[in-house]
């Protein structure tokens, strides 16, 4: 089954999002990692979408459906483009806020079949990068393997 898929989702407010899944091979992966890594990207023109509960629920439904069909590790990089955030979340960077939304989205559709591993990467310039791994609970060891590999990455 091909791992590449893309969907468009029009929210009830009329915003059109694109959700894309594609194989990902940037990480150095250990031999013991047997599951493919698939990148999930959520995009909208000009980042003018609305991040309400029903939109997050639709995203999580698409991601869960994909994981039901494909036994993979999903990877997501939260980008740092500006995003509307309420007073309560002004202290968070756009990346951190997106990461929080991912977490909420994931927990909203929460069941014991799936896991979400948030990872904060801080580089030599003190820039923060938020990434997530998602998969079915049975792949917990695979997610831990990938996380360890990132931890060891010295370059």
């Amino acid at each position, binding site marked *: 089954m091909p791992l590449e*898929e*893309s*969907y*468009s*989702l*029009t929210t009830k407010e009329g915003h059109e999002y*694109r*959700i*894309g899944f*594609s194989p*990902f091979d*940037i990480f150095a992966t250990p031999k013991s990692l047997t599951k493919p890594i698939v*990148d999930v*990207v959520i*995009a*909208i*023109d000009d980042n003018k979408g609305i991040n309400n509960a029903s939109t997050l629920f*639709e995203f999580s439904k*698409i991601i869960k459906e994909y994981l039901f069909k494909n036994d993979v590790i999903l990877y997501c*990089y939260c*980008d*740092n483009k500006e995003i509307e955030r309420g007073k309560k979340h002004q202290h968070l960077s756009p990346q951190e806020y997106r990461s929080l939304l991912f*977490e909420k989205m*994931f*927990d909203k559709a*929460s069941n*014991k079949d*799936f*896991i*979400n*591993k*948030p*990872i*904060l*990467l*801080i*580089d*030599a*310039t003190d*820039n923060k*990068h938020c*990434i997530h791994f998602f998969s079915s*609970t049975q792949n917990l060891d695979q*997610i831990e393997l990938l*996380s360890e590999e*990132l*931890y060891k*990455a*010295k*370059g």
Partner: protein
Amino acid sequence: MTLQPLHIKNSSKGFLDLVTKLKADKDAKVKALLSKKTTIKK
């Protein structure tokens, strides 16, 4: 279920190259996705 977050701080050049690549890859994929004509409607 959301697991305990992992924080990784790494000052090596290799790590900086890696995160730079991750960011560039994401930007390119967003661009490609938005210009894609064929997608499944949900």
